[in-house]
């Protein structure tokens, strides 16, 4: 079965510290992986997708098929990074349905 696991409900770091939000997935095939972010009082929005291999707001994520992981990383956290982060996967097929993890709340302390 397709599943996305985010083991941490809360991650608290100090400003300037490195951040790693963990995401592991279960999928028999080649999934597409995404990170979505929800800032306070804002809508859920796409942060980045693995196929783009991009860096958004200093965040990167590398798909590791051997470890079935897609961890989100940033070398130096900023207070404005505080938000809820969701990892999601999409399998092949026409539906484009996303399976989401339970989310990790990142709190960046001053």
């Amino acid at each position, binding site marked *: 079965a397709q599943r*996305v696991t985010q083991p941490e409900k809360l991650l608290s770091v100090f400003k300037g510290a490195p951040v790693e939000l963990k995401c592991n997935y279960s999928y028999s095939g080649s999934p*597409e992986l*995404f990170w*979505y972010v929800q800032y306070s009082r804002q*809508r*859920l*929005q*796409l942060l980045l*997708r693995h196929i783009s291999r991009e860096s958004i707001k200093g965040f990167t994520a590398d798909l590791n098929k051997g470890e079935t992981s897609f961890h989100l990383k940033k070398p130096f956290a900023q207070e404005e990074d505080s938000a809820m982060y*969701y990892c*999601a996967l*999409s399998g092949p097929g*026409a*539906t*484009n*349905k*996303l*399976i*989401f*993890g*339970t*989310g990790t709340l990142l709190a960046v302390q001053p």
Partner: protein
Amino acid sequence: GAGVSQSPSNKVTEKGKDVELRCDPISGHTALYWYRQRLGQGLEFLIYFQGNSAPDKSGLPSDRFSAERTGESVSTLTIQRTQQEDSAVYLCASSLVRNGYTFGSGTRLTVV
């Protein structure tokens, strides 16, 4: 419109009543999705529309839940005989190209 619009933003209803939740997707987006988010949990997929048809309804939790979409535009999610466990935020998203979801701000449903 400029974004995905959902209404109402908040709904409090009595147990046993029916509710209708509305989603206006981005104009031209052929794909539309409904998700549910219960407190402290992730997003649960409910149903997917491609145009006016729903090829994937696998996430609808019971026959009390139904959804329709008209004119490749507005979608309505209907919950009949609401129960307390239906309390959640219901999110709608639309998409034009594969994997490019745009979410609405959600409807917070509270069943008392």
